[in-house]
């Protein structure tokens, strides 16, 4: 089985993140850039499928600037066979739709049986890319998986919902997006780190993919961020005064916030 894992480099969600004043895009230059956390779960799932099914290959696919190489190396140190890096100055400013066009072109070239990705990225959190890619490629989209079972060409996921889960099946080729409940990603071993540098990373430009520059980047973006503002500081919480009904009020609050 040929598996491609989509890996995006994002600013560390644990640190303070900013949008740039001049163009409302994520400030990546001053951020500590890391692999989108959810993508590590997708990669782990791919590696587990590879270990369980002989003859499988796992390729990382990243679209991003030069410094995304760091994230590609980190991903490779976890164990996949190689990577493809879509790198082109004209990609700056690409929106979700444009990203799906570029990644779809790269995936057509790679012809995977299975595409795995995180259910969302921690910077944009749109959750739309897997569906867009499935539409462009004409393959099934199994999204929001908390469990994935592979039986030959048959894929079964448990799709996480607010109330529980749904069982959804599809045949390959397909795209599966995963949540962080699906597994526990491995840490790169020292051998993995040493081997990562020697693994093949193919760099592709928009021209290589047959996508014209005006279909991507600022030129091709159908959506733009008009303005942005910092989240307002947290307001004071709910104060429950215990007048004999305190316990009930606490439970009501927890229920209203879906904690219980």
């Amino acid at each position, binding site marked *: 089985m040929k598996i491609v894992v989509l890996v995006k480099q994002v600013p560390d969600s644990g640190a303070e993140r900013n949008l740039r004043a001049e163009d409302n895009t994520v400030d990546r230059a001053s951020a500590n850039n890391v692999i989108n956390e959810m993508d590590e779960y997708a990669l782990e799932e791919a590696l587990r499928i590879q270990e369980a099914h002989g003859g499988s290959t796992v390729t990382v696919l990243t679209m991003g600037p030069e410094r995304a190489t760091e994230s590609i*190396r*980190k991903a490779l140190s976890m164990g996949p066979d190689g990577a493809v890096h879509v790198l082109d100055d004209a990609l700056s400013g690409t929106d979700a739709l444009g990203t799906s066009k570029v990644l779809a072109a790269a995936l057509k070239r790679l012809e995977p049986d299975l595409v795995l990705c995180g259910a969302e990225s921690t910077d944009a959190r749109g959750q739309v890319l897997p569906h867009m890619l499935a539409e462009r490629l004409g393959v099934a989209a199994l999204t929001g998986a908390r469990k994935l079972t592979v039986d030959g060409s048959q894929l079964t996921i448990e799709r996480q919902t607010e109330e529980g889960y749904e069982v959804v099946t599809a045949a390959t080729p397909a795209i599966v997006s995963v949540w962080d409940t699906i597994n526990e990603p491995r*840490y*790169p071993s*020292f*051998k993995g*780190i*040493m081997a*990562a540098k020697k693994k093949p990373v193919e760099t592709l430009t928009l021209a290589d993919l047959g996508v014209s520059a005006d279909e991507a980047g600022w030129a091709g973006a159908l959506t733009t961020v008009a303005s942005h503002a910092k989240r307002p500081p947290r307001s004071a919480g709910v104060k429950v005064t215990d007048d004999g009904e305190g316990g009930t009020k606490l439970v009501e609050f927890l229920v209203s916030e879906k904690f219980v």
Partner: protein
Amino acid sequence: MLEGEERQALRKAVRQLAGKYGREYFMSRARAGGKTTELWREAGQLGYLGVHIPEEYGGGGGGIGDLAAVCEELATAGSPLAMIVVSPAICATVIHRFGTDEQKGKWLPGLTDGSLIFSFAITEPDAGSNSHRLTTTARRDGDDWVLNGRKTYITGVDEAHAVLVVGRTEDARTGKLKPALFVVPTTAPGIAYTRIETDLIAPEKQFALFIDEVRLPGEALVGDEDAGLMQLFAGLNPERIMAAAFATGMARYALGRAIEYAKTRQVWDVPIGGHQAISHPLAIAHINVELVRLMTQKAAHLYDHGEDYEAGEAANMAKYAAGEAAVAAIDAAIQTHGGNGLSTEYGLAAMLAAARLIRIAPVSREMILNFVAQNTLGLPRSY
């Protein structure tokens, strides 16, 4: 400057792993008298404990600089694992450099993945820093060796499968005693050990070791009988490099806590870190820790390039400076915390003794000053 991409990636990976366990894990085990076995095993399985051992024995093919990075990052994340200094750094290094092919095949794979733990025993009750006074002696009996002696302040004997014991053998020709290293299983008949109670809060305990007519097979002697002193130095340079890395990691952990506290603790109108009385001592401590890291990396670089003599000098200087920097950093971190600095919750007071230990072990700061005065500066021997 000195560290390549792979070393940096290794540091990040180790930090992540140790971060999963966290300081709480380490401290709760240490306080309850437990071990940090899960972290040790996972680090071993990921190849972090054997980064410096060749691939043919299951290692990573890197150098002592890589192992020092592992040790430092674990400590920086709150889990200083002392057995790394002893088992993979000293014992595996000595066996790798001086052991026979058979010894290497037998012990290195286990020491590399952490499934096998060796302690290292040199100090004796009547021979502390003076290794010429060692009285643990091996005598030949047919093909066997029979070992007798006493060792003290030996780390982790209770968790070790064997102890690499520095003893002496009698030179058949001159009758003089010369150092020799023996692998002694902790279960060998005639071996006994008792715990030395200390006020150090660490999972690794200290032991007095009694060796009474312990019969060992011929192959228990590591390497060549005549290479004893060289073997000792081969093990002691990595020990100093690792001790420096261990100390700087602890210092970085303490400084990290202090910086966090200084940024959030507010007594008047601004966080206390806005006051120079708080920020300057932390800045000074950080500078000194960074200087030690640089010297430690230099020592490791020299050692990994086969410059044993130059590495010895640098390793001693790094270890000396590490002890001073760690004590000062933890002191500054405690002062930043005020009363909280001595609370159990913040866990910094427990680091006082641990940092103070680096000034004493594995070699005292005074012996390092003697070494530098005599060997580097060419001054007369003072003792």
